[in-house]
């Protein structure tokens, strides 16, 4: 490799990493727009979730076949990143297969494994493309995905296939060159997969083979750098964020709703005025519930960025199943879209300038929010430990407490509880009538 190539490589690598960290910092900033919640208790349980849910993909195994394919793609992709380490070092130092002499005979085994993984990645991606575009599974044809999200999913799968094919072609050409003793091509012995296909290229001249090998090498690494920079704009960001998201997932029983200490305090004062004397004078009137993304917690926003738009939540949602507007996947996509919009606003104006919009109504309608039965099916299904219900309930709180907006029947229910201690209009005196009737 000549010095020009080395230089170009370092520039490409530097630019790729620079751009990525820039965008990653924006996402970090957007997530930090959420209000604070402490999610650091019980690290033991949290690590368990990280291992089981993120590394072990426990939830995926609710459907074993898909889980295995996804696991191939995931493991393949992660492990092949080790290969990238060598590529990067080769690129910087103008070497070829830097690790081969160091690892010795194990090297061929290692590359053989990577090749097998590359093949499984291709198979997995191909099946996923078929499921999405030919079999048209219900959760993939939903209107939530119209436009960009659908193409996004396909781009990723196609890119992964192309990257793996480049890697395999590169190795094939490399081996023919090795066998001819061409200078610079370290002899490693035959690789498991591509070793079987060298005959395809054996008719080509040294020069053509070198050109093929180099072209694949460059396209492979440039493709990976491009992919890295595509990630933050894509649902594929879940390959990174699924890990912290599993760690910070809720450890409490799913039925438990988040408490509102401000309201708790106010009601305590009403019920026991004697406490009020030594209570500190209340500061600013707190906001109740969430209207926009800044009212949600940072975990809700991390959820939104982690969502892989798989639609398992929506497929299990009783409201969605029965034709209502509500789709928990859309709740997550809306939250991410709004967070991006607010982030761009901040980037442009230095700080957030009111744009007359909010997550509530401009993205998520009352009708959607009203349809939720709080059944937790979405939370149960999500393979990435996302909680759409938490967002729904906070938006509902805003509707009812800040805007007094509730269906008439709910208002009746509220006043019944307040006046009769039960959601129905019965006399509290009749509460134990059943005990005296036969």
């Amino acid at each position, binding site marked *: 490799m000549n010095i020009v190539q080395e230089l170009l490589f370092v520039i490409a690598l530097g630019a790729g990493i620079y751009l990525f960290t820039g965008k990653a910092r924006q996402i970090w900033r957007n997530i930090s727009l959420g209000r604070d919640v402490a999610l650091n208790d019980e690290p033991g349980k949290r690590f368990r979730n990280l291992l089981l849910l993120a590394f072990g993909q426990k939830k995926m195994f609710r459907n074993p076949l898909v889980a295995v394919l996804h696991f191939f793609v995931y493991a393949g992709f992660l492990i092949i990143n080790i290969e990238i380490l060598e590529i990067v070092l080769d690129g910087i130092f103008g070497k070829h297969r830097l690790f081969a002499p160091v690892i010795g005979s194990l090297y061929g085994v290692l590359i053989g494994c990577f090749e097998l993984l590359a093949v499984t990645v291709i198979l997995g991606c191909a099946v996923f493309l078929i499921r999405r575009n030919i079999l048209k599974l219900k959760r993939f044809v939903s209107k939530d995905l119209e436009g960009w999200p659908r193409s996004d999913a396909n781009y990723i799968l196609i890119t992964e296939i192309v990257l793996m094919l480049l890697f395999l072609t590169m190795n094939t050409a490399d081996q023919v060159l090795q066998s001819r003793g061409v200078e610079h091509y370290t002899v490693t012995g035959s690789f498991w997969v591509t070793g079987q296909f060298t005959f395809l290229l054996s008719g080509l001249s040294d020069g053509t083979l070198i050109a093929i090998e180099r072209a694949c090498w460059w396209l492979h690494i440039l493709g990976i750098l491009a992919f890295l920079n595509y990630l933050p704009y894509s649902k594929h960001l879940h390959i990174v964020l699924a890990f912290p998201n599993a760690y910070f997932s809720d450890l409490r029983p799913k039925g438990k709703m988040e*408490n509102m200490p401000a309201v708790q305090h*106010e009601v305590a004062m009403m019920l026991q005025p004697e406490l009020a004397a030594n209570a500190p004078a209340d500061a600013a009137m707190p906001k109740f519930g969430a209207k926009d993304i800044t009212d949600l917690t940072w975990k809700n926003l991390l959820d939104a960025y982690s969502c892989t738009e798989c639609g398992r939540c929506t497929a299990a949602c009783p409201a969605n*199943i029965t034709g*209502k507007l509500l789709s928990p996947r859309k709740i997550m996509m809306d939250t991410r879209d709004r967070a991006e919009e607010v982030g761009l606003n901040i980037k442009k104006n230095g700080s957030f300038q009111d744009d007359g919009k909010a997550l509530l109504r401009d993205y998520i309608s009352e009708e959607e929010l009203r349809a939720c039965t709080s059944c937790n099916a979405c939370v149960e299904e999500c393979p990435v430990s996302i909680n759409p219900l938490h967002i729904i309930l906070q938006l509902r709180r805003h509707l009812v407490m800040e805007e007094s907006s509730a*269906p008439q029947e709910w208002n009746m229910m509220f006043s019944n*509880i307040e006046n009769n201690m039960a*959601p129905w209009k019965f006399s509290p005196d009749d*509460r134990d009538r059943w005990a005296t009737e036969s």
Partner: protein
Amino acid sequence: MHIRTMADYAASGESPEILFWVGCAGSFDQRAQKITKAFATILDAAGIQFAILGKEESCTGDPARRAGNEFIFQMMAQNNIQLLNAYGIKKIVTACPHCFNTIKNEYPELGGHYEVIHHATYLQQLIDEGKVRMKEGGSFKGKKITYHDSCYLGRANNIYEAPRKVLEALDSELVEMKRCRSKGLCCGAGGAQMFKEEEKGTTRVNFDRGAEAVATGASVIASNCPFCMTMLTDGVKEQGKEDSVQVLDIAEMIARDLAQGN
């Protein structure tokens, strides 16, 4: 059977083993009252000293909280906690998964700490301990039964096996619906939906669930929640099967087949 209230116990200086938290549906809904009575009958037959709060009980606040009205929830919750604490209550059993969830998971951070048990779990314990025994050749023996997981017992609190164990005691044949346990389909009543019309859709949640339950061919749909009871009963009616398929709470099923001399 004479049902004593906490006030009765306090007046005589005694304290009961458990408080039976009846809940709004169990108190006022005519169909759910039968569940309440059945459960009280079982407790009585098992020789458990229990009390109810009677007129002193209030809504836990669950539907208000889930609809978004935290103020009303806090008012109900704090009042209830004051009352429970004043009576020194330690152990609460309830036949309503919503009451169970709220008192167990949401009252502690407001100062209400109790051992809270749903009646499915409690019935299983009583059966295991031999305090509740079933008569030979009961009315469910060999019958096809399907069980509907309520969201607030199942996914919300991870209780799937206790109600199934209780059904086992009846010697019936349990057939599962396709969507069961953690994949169970909601009845459509949770999250305060019970108290309003559903939003516009292609069908109702309880119709969908009712159809699925009926399709198992079971003659009894077992439930453990007064709200599921209402929803499923309507779902079965919609299928035109109200004459051949019954919806029963597990407590009613147990109460029906109690052995003599329990």
